[in-house]
């Protein structure tokens, strides 16, 4: 599904190259649940964003379903990203001005899905996540765990093949964190590929593979 060949990421500043990622070679198959671990500044999030097509690598090749992402124009990238990838962040990143329902609806709007179909999809998801009663609340009226649930719901509403989660439980207390991890595990069991960045050994165990990053290198 994903193949990275010699991916590097660096910032150039007055002739000094600051490397964030160095020569990353990685292959991820459909249905895997990967946990990326490592100390702060190791390049975990950058790797996640490059895989998620929100950032581009400075060097190297990236194949997504055998298509060369490193050669794509922005339009194609947006297209690919929006149809295949869902994102979950540590800070949830819901749109403050929109209600729960509207937040869930927004990705579908960008995919130009018809109103009736859209309504159905949103209703199903609200039901599945037990959030029907909260559908008209704004994000700041919810607890952190609830916000993260909404964020995950929003990430999967377009039925992506891949979910990228950047420390999804980082801002939550352990009970809520566990709930979120169980949810991700369940999604993985249903066939969604998941890559998560985490600091927690415990959360990492939900995955079937752990990648350790240190100073931009993958530790073998």
């Amino acid at each position, binding site marked *: 599904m994903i193949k990275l060949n010699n991916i590097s990421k660096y910032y150039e500043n007055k002739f000094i190259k600051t490397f964030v990622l160095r020569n990353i070679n990685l292959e991820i198959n459909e249905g895997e649940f990967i946990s990326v671990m490592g100390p702060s500044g190791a390049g975990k999030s950058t790797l996640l964003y490059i895989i998620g097509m*929100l950032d581009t690598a400075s060097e190297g090749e990236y194949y997504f379903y055998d298509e060369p992402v490193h050669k794509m124009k922005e339009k194609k990238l*947006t297209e690919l990203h929006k149809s295949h990838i869902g994102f979950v962040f540590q800070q949830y990143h819901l*749109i*403050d001005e*929109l209600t729960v329902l*509207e937040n869930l609806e927004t990705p579908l709007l*960008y995919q130009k899905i018809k109103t009736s179909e859209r309504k159905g999809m949103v209703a199903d998801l609200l039901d599945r996540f037990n959030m029907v009663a909260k559908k008209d609340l704004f994000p700041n009226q919810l607890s952190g765990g609830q916000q993260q649930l909404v964020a995950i719901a929003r990430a999967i509403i377009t039925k992506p093949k891949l979910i990228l989660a950047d420390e999804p439980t980082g801002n939550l207390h352990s009970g809520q964190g566990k709930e979120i991890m169980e949810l991700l595990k369940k999604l993985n069991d249903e066939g969604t590929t998941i890559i998560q960045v985490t600091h927690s050994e415990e959360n990492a165990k939900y995955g079937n593979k752990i990648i350790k990053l240190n100073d931009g290198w993958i530790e073998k």
Partner: protein
Amino acid sequence: MIRNYFKIVIRNILRQKVFTFLNISGLAIGIAIASLIMLYVKFEWEYDKSYPNTDSIYRVIQRVPGKPFMGTEYFAVTQEPLGRTLKSEFPEIVNYATIGTWKNAAINNSKNMSFEENVLYATAPNFLQMFSIELMQGNTNTALSQLNTVILSENIAKKLFGSENPIGKTITVIETETWTVTGIYKSLPANSQFATYGLITSFETYASGLKNREQALSWKNNSWYNYVKVINGTNPEFINARMPNIVNKYLSDANADIKARELYLQPLKDIRLYNNAYFGMGENGDLKTMLILIAIAIVMLSIASINYMNLSTARASLRAREVGVRKVIGANKIQLIAQFMGDSVFLSITAGIFAIILDLFLLPSFNQLIGINFSSAALLQPSFLIGISVITLLIGLLSGAYPAFILSSFQPVKVIMGDNAKGKHAYLRYILVVTQFAASIALIACTFIILSQLNYIKNRDMGYNRENIVVVPLNNNVIIQLGPMKQDLSQNPSISDVTACSQTPINIVSATYVNIPGEAGETKVLSYSIDSDFNFLQTFNIPLVEGRNFSKNITTDSTNAVLINQSLANSLGLKNAINSTISINNNKYNIIGLIKDINIHSLHQKIEPLFVRLNKPYLQYLCVKTKSGNLPATIDFIKSVWDRYSGQKPFKYTFLDSDFNSLYKREERVAQIVSYSSALAIIIACLGLLGLVSFIVEQKRKEIGIRKVLGASVSDVVGTLSKQFLQWVLYANIIAIPVAYYLMASWLQDFAFRINISWWVFILSGGMALLIALITVSSQTIKAAFANPVKSIRYE
């Protein structure tokens, strides 16, 4: 999708009520003021352009080289035979109209109610055809073919006859002539030079009543207006070059004076704004005033748009995270651009709607200010609405462009990670704020300079007294009995002097040539003249430098004595003027007194030569100097005396000082518009500053908190925060001062007597802007500085 955007727009507005209010109201005020000004400019710009043939109609004007009068060598009046001569001599000229005007003619309707109306007499039907004047009743070709017939404008017909049909009814003119109404024409638009004339009669009707008909209609009499219509596309220069030669054929050698003048075709559409010819028919417009107004409109609009853009972009940068999130969940660039553009355009259109509502409220005061009666329909005319829509749309798109293109191009990762480019594009915002303040400061400085020039004009010693003088227009009955009437008036202890004169000294427009008889090569000097009665000098406190005033005891004073001013004595080269003889229109006069130079025109003009002589038949005004005190009682007394002598003529009066002030109506108008605009400009600029300061303070809450934890005092914090803003205002001064100086120096060029622009004006206006900015800025910074640091740090 649109509903989703729309919800966000509305929720943002509700969440940031103050911010949105500042944003919309600033733009609305700017658009409202600019559009009102443009309404007026459009009115002036379209003056005389509503006739279907406007482009091929010209007025014939003449230039008398080397003999300036009232500051110009060009005159709008020409001779009666000129029009028809041009028509017969030039194949390019297809029609002509010779017209004359008669202002404030006493008209009585069939019920014997009296009115004062302006009458136009014209060679009909040429005139009606040339200006496409539509007859609603009556026949264009025949309506004025008989003597003593008249056509009325729709408005005047209503005024004189109410709802009755006026056709066939008669009106009485100056109690002697009876005219029959033979037509009604559609009233002309207010911005046409004939609009103030509501009655049109034939040229013949008027000429038949002239006492000295032969002279009036000869080549020697310049009191007519000649208009010609040329074949479309004719170059007027081509006719100009040939006119004098062809016309001079009709003149005998005795008319060398007339032959020396040059003739020009002046385009009808240029008469209002570009006119340089004196004795024009209506009030002149003024191109310079229009340009000043357009500049003000542009400045107001720019200040308001800058404001809007600054506030919008500041607010939009708060939404960088939202943009990032939207990108992550699948928005493409186009969709984001559309969202931000839509947001901005929605707000700017809201401002446009408020602007129109504001205009409707401001219209009555604006009408009063400019002296034109625009109806609210004028504000809702399509061209006006389209103008406002285009402007609001443009401002909306332009201010939407920054967030739309910049924010949507951010890499979502960076925005989401909090590393957004909040500060990166801020320098543009600084430049905009500096521009905005520069414009406001320049306007304030201009206001001060214009007001001090007006103040200078009004308080300058003109050389004569104009306080407490009541001016009463005379008529024949009164002139005959002037002596006894003056006698009666002087009985009242509140009246200190009474005189009569052909013109009051505030603006003398009659002039004639003066020379020293018998001198070789006779130098003729054009001198302004006043015909007066005794007591002229006393009434106006005009000082005598040498010689004596007119005396009732010396009989020759009434026939051949003259007072001249120093300027005339100098122009004639008279060293010992007293008892010298001068010739005025071939009559010899003895100079009995030399009077001090006084200003006899508005201060736009220099002091010019003047003579004063006793000449009873030409007296037009009774001037009564009163002692300050019970003015209404004194006026009642003057009226009672008037009623005794006037033969039931209505008593009318003005005050000399208000007549004087009306010379500067135009300047007064400019001054008012500039001062209102500058007040509004600084308010809008401050709204913008307020919005920006609160935005930046909001951004720096954490920084302020940290500084306070580290031990900064409130004044330290306020100082650091305010310094930057005040620096902008200082930079703005550097731009504003030369611009304002240059503009005002050129405005002052129009005055022969003017103030020097002094440096304190700039210190004052800069200081004012700085003070207002300081108050605005500190209202926010002090609040921020007093906030509990713990809260703001934990807030993050």
